């Protein structure tokens, strides 16, 4: 593949992925509204388009045309920069997420369903998400409002706390697959054991890690039951109290983009990525992995919404105690046990071979 | 495609000098603390650069140790800053010169 082809394909892939991501974000909002409505025995959006399917579009138009208020005492540079930071980091982490396997793109050669693959892909995702906290923190501080400040403080404290257990929960997976490249991690989960159970990490010794990851991910994305930073009963709207119109929309997009990223990561690390039954004609076979991947991500998105409208909110000290006193030790224990089993298996090949 | 290693070292030296200058001229204790981090980063760059020159990963390992120490230092240092701020209600180092809390 020539360098120009590489650049062109990369550009196409980038545009496509960003488009898909933004669409997914928009329809996540629709999904949220629809599901919450049904949980509460309502209809949800129905007016715009069939089943309210065009509602996200209408929302977007509304955000753009609303008045963009800037309060007089805010620290303006950061007030403006904060939502941009949030949304940029939220979207850019999608760059290393693989959506599927190799596909042949006509005469130009084959390519991978991923913008780029890095040896340290997982670390890049973690790094970019860890930078996302600045958007929230700076928004809270720059707004020069006590609700915002408290929200920002809570958000940043909560995010860097749960980042620890989130990161540690992934180490088990890394030990199992021996790589930081997301593509190789997924490849390591191919196949089945006992003939029918897929060799996904969630079934493959990392069940505890999966739940740790899930819980930490909820906290990372400030979702219920960990939505303390924007707890409307305490802090009005938390760090984005003073934001309106498109700036608010950026935070909104950042939150849902983060959810999508986290869901993608969970899919890749624990649910076998694009692995799934493949059948049908060649064109279908080429698209099946993407379908399976999207299905799993959709499952996670649904789970997000389901949990949000089901569980009550934690108290802040409970949240911190849970993160540091329960999740962190569990994650460490998981690492120790996993490492022990892997090491023993390297020594004695038959050790716990059914796992 | 090759550039002299001394470019990296110059950059590292510049960052270090900026750190020292920050320590000398800044008044805010947190900014001074950040200047220290800047110095550490400058040193880290030289570690990585020398690792490239000698083709030995040990230089990169040292970066990790520097980071760990920096993390510990940040945790304790910021806690101290908070404690100082509670009693002094100022972050200006020129006013925190009583040699006691």
């Amino acid at each position, binding site marked *: 593949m020539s360098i120009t082809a590489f650049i062109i394909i990369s550009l196409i892939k980038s545009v496509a992925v960003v488009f898909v991501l933004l669409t997914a974000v928009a329809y996540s909002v629709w999904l949220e509204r629809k599901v919450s409505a049904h949980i509460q025995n309502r209809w949800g959006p129905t007016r715009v388009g069939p089943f309210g399917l065009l509602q996200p579009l209408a929302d977007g138009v509304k955000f753009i045309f609303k008045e963009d208020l800037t309060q007089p005492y805010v620290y303006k540079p950061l007030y403006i920069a904060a939502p941009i930071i949030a949304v940029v980091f939220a979207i850019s982490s999608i760059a290393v997420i693989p959506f599927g396997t190799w596909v042949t793109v006509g005469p130009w050669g084959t390519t991978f369903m991923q913008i780029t693959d890095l040896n340290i892909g997982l670390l890049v995702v973690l790094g970019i998400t860890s930078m996302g906290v600045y958007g929230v923190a700076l928004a809270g501080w720059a707004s020069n409002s006590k609700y915002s400040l408290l929200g920002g403080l809570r958000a940043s404290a909560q995010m860097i706390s749960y980042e620890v257990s989130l990161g540690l929960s992934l180490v088990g997976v890394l030990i199992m697959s021996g790589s930081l490249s997301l593509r190789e991690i997924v490849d390591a989960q191919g196949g089945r054991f006992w003939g029918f159970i897929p060799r996904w990490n969630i079934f493959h010794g990392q069940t505890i890690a999966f739940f740790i990851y899930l819980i930490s991910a909820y906290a990372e994305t400030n979702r219920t039951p960990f939505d303390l930073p924007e707890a409307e009963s305490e802090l009005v709207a938390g760090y984005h109290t003073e934001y309106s119109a498109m700036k608010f929309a950026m935070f909104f997009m950042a939150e849902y983009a983060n959810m999508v990223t986290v869901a993608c990561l969970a899919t890749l690390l624990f649910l076998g990525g694009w692995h799934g039954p493949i059948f049908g004609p060649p064109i279908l076979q080429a698209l099946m992995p993407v379908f399976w991947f999207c299905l799993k991500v959709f499952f996670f998105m649904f789970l997000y919404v389901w949990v949000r409208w089901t569980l009550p909110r934690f108290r802040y000290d409970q949240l911190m105690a849970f993160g540091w006193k329960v999740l962190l030790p569990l994650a460490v224990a998981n690492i120790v046990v996993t490492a022990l089993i892997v090491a023993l298996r390297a020594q004695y090949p038959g050790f716990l071979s059914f796992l | 495609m090759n550039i002299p290693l001394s470019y990296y070292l110059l950059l590292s030296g510049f960052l270090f000098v900026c750190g*020292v200058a920050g320590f000398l001229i800044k008044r805010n204790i947190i900014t001074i603390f950040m200047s220290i981090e800047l110095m550490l980063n400058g040193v880290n760059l030289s570690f990585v650069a020398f690792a490239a020159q000698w083709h030995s990963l040990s230089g990169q390992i040292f970066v990790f140790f520097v980071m760990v120490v920096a993390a510990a230092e940040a945790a304790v240092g910021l806690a101290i800053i908070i404690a100082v701020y509670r009693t002094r209600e100022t972050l200006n180092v*020129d006013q925190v010169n009583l040699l006691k809390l």
Partner: protein
Amino acid sequence: MTPNPYLWLLPILPLAGAAINGFFGRKSSRKAITAVALTFCGAAFLLALWIAVGFSSASAPYYFDLAHWIRSGDFRVDFSFYLDQLSLVMLLVVTGVGFLIHIYSVGYMWDDDGFYRFMSYLNLFMFFMLTLVLAKNYLMMFIGWEGVGLASYLLIGFWFTKDSAAAAGKKAFIVNRIGDFGFLIALFLIIKHFGSLDFPTVFQAVAPLPSETAGAGFLTAIGLLLMVGAAGKSAQIPLYVWLPDAMEGPTPVSALIHAATMVTAGVYMVARSHIIFERAPSAMTVVAIIGTLTALFAATIGIAQTDIKKVLAYSTVSQLGYMFMACGVGAFSAGIFHLMTHAFFKGLLFLAAGSVIHGVGGEQDMRKMGGLRHFMPWTFATMGIATLAIAGIPPLAGFWSKDEILWQAFGQSWVYWLIGVITAFITSFYMFRLMYMTFAGDYRGGAPDNSHGHDAHGHGDGHGHGEPHESSWVMLGPLVVLAVLSLVGGLVGYGNHFEHFLDPVFQAGKAVQETAGETGSRSLEFVLMGISISVAGLGWFLAWLLYSNRPKLPARIAESLGGLYRAVANKYYIDELYAVLFVKPLIDGSTSILWHGVDQGVIDATVNNSASAARDISDEVRHMQSGNLRSYAGWVAAGGAVVIAYMVWMGVR
């Protein structure tokens, strides 16, 4: 040499007793303390007896290496014990007399508050004395040497609340240190020349050396230095001054340590090192002269003393002089023989004197006694036997040993013999003087008055001491045993049995004796014996004349003698002389030179000036420590620039 695994038990047993009483005695009952002290001491005595039974003149020495101690290059010193005929005699004397005095102490010290302390110290003393006696090398001997010094110090100052006792303890300790100084240097010389301190090694190395007849070599130096040590420990001129003062201690202590055992350690050490001395004739001569002079000198002082214990103390010094005289003329076995008999009768004398003091309520001044034979017949009888023994009346113990010494001394030079005979006469005189003043005539003591008692040890208070009384049987028992020993103890010397027993030890010394034996004939020996017996009788007669027949006469004689009497009564002003010669210059020198000059002028000044200099500099420099963080950073940056400049300069150069 044969190993004997029981040797180390001998010293350890009293040490165990000392430890038990010392650590737990404060809370224990007196009976328990007594039981512990007597059990361990008695066990040591029985063990010694048991070992002695299997030991004959022909036996090879026993030894036992307990543990390694110093291993430094080729030089090594171990905790090892050694038993030959010489140590066996000492061993039996120490444990036997020591055990008797332990029993006696129980009665004597029963009412004292520090009973447990006393018994513990006594046991401790036994431990160190046995270490000294059983040592296989000079360093072990030195441990024992210093240890008995410590025990002596503790016991002299036993009633440490009394200033005189505390001072006497210090005096004994310090004077002994002077002697130890010589001893230590002798040890260093031995290490330098022989590379070892083990007796067998050293003596084997010395044996082939020629006698240093012309001039003085290192053997003479070693001998003289050893003699300095011995003079300190055994109270010889010029270091005898501590022994009379040591009478401040309880009387059993005087009996055990300052008469029977510890003070003879010097004699033992000289006898032990006889091989060295025999090859250093000048050193031998010095030993003989010192011993002879001490014997005469101390005896004359003894004439004028009125304190019963002081008389005995000077008598001890005098008798020790005899022993050194014996060693000095090469009659080591005679010296050891006298050491043994002296342990019996002098121990007995002290114990009897203690019984007297006990009986009259703590009074020690003989002028306030008299007529006590009616009150305490047993004491009178036993003390009489001891007096006869020390005076050299045949066939009691003292006669045999003293006569042996005089005979051997005559073989060396008639001067020694003459002085020895004069001393024997004086000894006889002051001993019978003591007897007459104490036991004959009428009781001159008044109503009990504790204030005039020298020996104000705690047991004057509870007892009514209106009448002098006989002591309890706990105290009289040892008196009787020792009296029997004083009676018959000398008979072991009959026919030179004792001498032959010690022959394996003093083999080399025998040559000297043979020559002595050849010069004098058998008849001459009897003549000399007759002379010494007659001077003893003469002394007795003179004492009877002055103190029993005409009691007014001594005062008149004293008056007519005037200054001479006062000089004798005041011990020739030796203490005062020492005070002027040594103590005062030392104190003055210490005060003006060391204290004001060196300490204040140099050391303190250095410290103070450097401190004030540091303060002045710090006063200036402390402004650098302003507390301002950025100032510190400035200094660091400037210093960093200097370092970088240096490194660049070094790199470019």
